[in-house]
């Protein structure tokens, strides 16, 4: 699969239909998941209706980490096999992941206000999520401050791999420090420990976020490849 897509022309052909399909899939899952979460799932016995923020918050948290893991993988491929498409993929995923991280932070603090009585608290998980968000910003800033694309790609890949150290810290911070934030109750060894009626919409929306991530990343990649093509066409014209 990867080897097949490694050719930019084949990738463009593939993504031309893959991106819309993913996007449509995301829309369908959102159409199912949002009403399910808002109207047909039970309120929490402690938190009442505010628990519905969870359906925005938790998938955003998952896929902000997932996006980073994807970037780290792509960066590794880009560094080792010097593959242009991997560089483009890592770069394309960054803004999407950054937005997910921002959504997680914002919804988390919106949720914190009624439940914990504070917008922000410096506990391990919130802090490490903030660190992840800043790492995204640093990655994007580094990319945009170096014009030479190839060099920017390699340097950003190094940064991405170094920053990946933060991922396990975000994931396990709640287990390592006993803090305000609840520990993982879905993605943990020993199976899910959450009300089944909540699990349904949560997983649906998790799927929706994933498809959205895929669609947006593919679209970003296509835009970047188009831009390169236009630039090199202009160059060829200039030198003709």
């Amino acid at each position, binding site marked *: 699969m990867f080897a097949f897509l490694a050719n930019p022309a084949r990738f463009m052909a593939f993504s031309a239909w893959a991106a819309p399909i993913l996007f449509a899939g995301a829309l369908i899952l959102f159409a199912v998941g949002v009403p399910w979460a808002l109207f047909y799932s039970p309120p929490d016995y402690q938190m009442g209706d505010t628990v519905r923020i969870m359906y925005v918050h938790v998938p955003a948290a998952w896929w902000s980490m997932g996006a980073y893991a994807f970037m780290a993988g792509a960066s590794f491929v880009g560094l080792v096999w010097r593959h242009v498409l991997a560089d483009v993929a890592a770069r394309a995923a960054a803004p999407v992941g950054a937005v997910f991280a921002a959504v997680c932070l914002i919804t988390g603090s919106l949720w914190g206000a009624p439940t914990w009585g504070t917008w922000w608290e410096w506990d391990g998980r919130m802090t490490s999520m903030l660190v992840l968000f800043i790492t995204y910003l640093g990655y994007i800033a580094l990319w945009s401050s170096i*014009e*030479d694309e190839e060099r920017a790609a390699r340097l950003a890949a190094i940064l991405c791999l170094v920053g990946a150290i933060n991922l396990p810290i975000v994931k396990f911070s709640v287990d390592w420090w006993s803090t305000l934030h609840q520990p993982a109750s879905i993605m943990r060894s020993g199976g899910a420990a959450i009300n089944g009626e909540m699990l349904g919409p949560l997983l649906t929306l998790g799927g929706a976020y994933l498809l959205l991530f895929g669609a947006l990343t593919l679209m970003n990649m296509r835009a970047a490849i188009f831009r390169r093509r236009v*630039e090199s066409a202009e*160059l060829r014209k200039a*030198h003709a």
Partner: protein
Amino acid sequence: MNARGPFQDKQSIRVEALSLSRGQRILFENLSFAAASGDYVEVLGSNGSGKTSLLRAMAGLLRPSGGEIAIEGADEPSLALHYVAHANGLKRETSVREHLHYWAGLFGGSPSEDFVAQMLDLARVMALPVRVLSQGQARRLALARLVVAPRPIWLLDEPGAALDDAGKAVLNELIAAHRANGGIVVAAVHEPLGPSPSQTIRVSR
């Protein structure tokens, strides 16, 4: 007389179908030449034509967009060459003497203080920081790297810049001695340095 060891007749440079581009711009394509022990190659070309880029590519600092550069005959690839760039590679606050000792360590050689002081006329400024050197004195110090550590291949980018007549004469002597020892010199220049080149490469599109 100086620190350079004799190089046997086994050095060679082969540049084949080399293409270089900077940014979006193609500097030149399909440049080929070869040089062997004792050769002095002069690289000519107008401002911005790509002489510096060619030398940097030969030094391994710039990746060619096409073609090949093969440098052979050094005992170890990392001991093959010296590169004297436009930028002298000096620290403003570090003294001339400290530079010599640093390079001796960095490249593996001997600081050759006395030789440098005499030959390059830096005795008077040996203890001064680079900040107060005149332009020509700084250039002489950059050239001192050539004698601090022996290397078979010298890549020189306008080595005579800012040198007075005495300085240029010394440079020519160094080049002559290096060639006699079996070394190769490639120099990018605007005006011929003095020694008659074994070949002249003209860089342009």
